[in-house]
């Protein structure tokens, strides 16, 4: 996992440095002149984060190339994960555009298909029954608001 960890650590370090830099843009009070400005604590935290990230970088540099990525996912697994993520994001858009009930049905059916399940009866049953049950529990029993779209 060495090289992969190193890449991740460098990326995190860059993010922490950018966030640290952003702390200099925070407003300062003209009246209160204590050391504890709004930027004080985030800077302390980011300094600790950068120190810990540096340790990870050094650990991985010491490990060297021999610790190169051993863990590799098969292409099908990667495809399932990426498609599931995209479908979940679309679900997020769907609930506010189409409405919760319809989006839930489409999401459930879609995920089952993405994962390779092909029993249409089970897909249809799960896509129809689950959204209705969830909708009724939240809307009618728990009296919770659900995102509304152009459909239900």
């Amino acid at each position: 996992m060495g090289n992969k960890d190193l890449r991740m650590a460098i990326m995190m370090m860059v993010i922490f440095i950018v966030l640290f830099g952003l702390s200099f843009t925070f407003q300062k009070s003209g009246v209160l002149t204590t050391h504890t400005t709004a930027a004080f604590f985030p800077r302390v935290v980011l300094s600790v984060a950068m120190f810990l990230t540096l340790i990870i970088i050094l650990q991985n540099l010491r490990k060297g190339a021999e610790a190169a990525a051993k863990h590799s996912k098969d292409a099908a697994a990667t495809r399932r994960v990426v498609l599931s993520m995209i479908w979940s994001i679309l679900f997020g858009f769907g609930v506010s555009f189409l409405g919760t009930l319809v989006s839930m049905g489409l999401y459930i059916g879609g995920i089952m298909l993405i994962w390779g399940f092909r029993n249409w009866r089970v897909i249809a049953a799960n896509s129809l029954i689950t959204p209705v049950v969830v909708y009724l529990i939240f809307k009618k029993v728990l009296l919770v608001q659900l995102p509304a779209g152009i459909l239900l």
Partner: protein
Amino acid sequence: MFEQLVIGFMTIAEPTNFLAVLMGVVGGMILGAMPGLTAPMGCALLIPFTYGMEPVAAITMLVSLYCGATYGGSIAAILVHAPGTPAAAATTFDGYPLAQKGQAGKALGMACISSFIGGFFSVIVLIFLAPVLANIAIKFGPAEYFALAIFGLSMLSSVGSKSTVKNLLGGTIGVFIACVGMDEISGFSRYDFGITHLMDGISFIPVMIGLFAATEVFRQAEIGMRKVAIDRKISGLPSWKEIKSVKGTLLRSSLIGTFIGILPAEGGTVASFIGYNEAKRFSKTPEKFGTGIIEGIAAPECANNAATGGSMVPTMALGIPGSGTTAVILGALMVHGMRPGPLLFVQHTQEVYGVFAGMFVANLLFLGLGLGGAKLFSQVLRVPNYVLSPIILVLCVVGTYALKNNMADVWIMLICGLVGYKMKEYGFTAAPIVLGLVLGELIEISLRRSLIVFDNNPLIFFTRPWSVALIILTVLGLCSPLIRSWLDNRGNGKGPALSEAGESED
């Protein structure tokens, strides 16, 4: 105290509250029995269902789910050699071999009885210790609170993933997330990137749901379609003689589990492994461990359930979560207007004792349900992940939206789910981030108040006795991976290493 406890029991006896406990236990057992679904995830998903409930019913339901799920993890560990929860990983060592010998019923029965004893013992400790701790903490000033919260964070070095540095970095990221939004002292906004919603800060709940639940959905996507087949006959229970033969182990594991649980950030996984290792060390026949003996099931199961009550001690008395699940419960307490800490025992006495009583009842309920219905609960293992996972994400979205009727929370949850999945790939776990997030505000406010009150003199933390004691404990906490490594190697390395539990998030 006894009077308040009686009132607590009367509160729990009300039909709504009792139903909440029952639903929590049943839900927890079902959740715990399913590999991949953990107690913090269940609690995070359950919070939205509790918005409309009374605080006692809501918190007791979550705590009951915690107790039920911790026991439920043993069902899958014994029947299919896959721990339902990380805390049940040590149960597989003897539980599965015993099931293979055709004694699955006995193994499940022993797990249930041991879990009950551990859980019951820890609730008694909770009832006596939490108010005492709260009485001490009520005298704490900001310097002590800062030291206490830092001590809680330092314990992250030994929780979650196998890498100490990554655990601490995860905790630090959590603390940073807590910095987003309006600064309470100066009133200026930080890291809001012009997004109005972020000026309020990032709520715990969407982050918790995203990291614990949505991440798991993507992890299941990686695994692909999975269906578990159970071909084992489940019948028989341990005899009274067998239960009596492990009474020493049960007492030892109860003490170990409760103590480990009380330590901030440590949970059932650590407790169960130490419980198992110590049982082996004290045994006259250590060579039999791992071959399917009753003692090898009793020790970890008793210890991990003892950690449930133990971890509620710092959560309720100090506002410092004792584990990943109690971090979620702490968030729920806040959602229901009960700020954890010493004042909780003064301002919400009836609710607190109601929760204590609820934990007693939850332990009794899972004992009855576990002994009588283990066969039934094992059937949930048959539910395939391709049916369950999309339902979980649907509940994530609906539940997160219900928090403030705001889609921004849903996006935060989804982002946390995606980031959490990627971070898991790199060896980070959710628990340290959530613990950091929960403690972040307390750390910042107490640090800055101390510095303001004491004229920016950082030496203040080294001049007050409790603060000094907690700083020493913090240093010890940071050294705990070394202590753990020493514990792992005890007995010439014959015991299973804690690292075998994988990623602990309990």
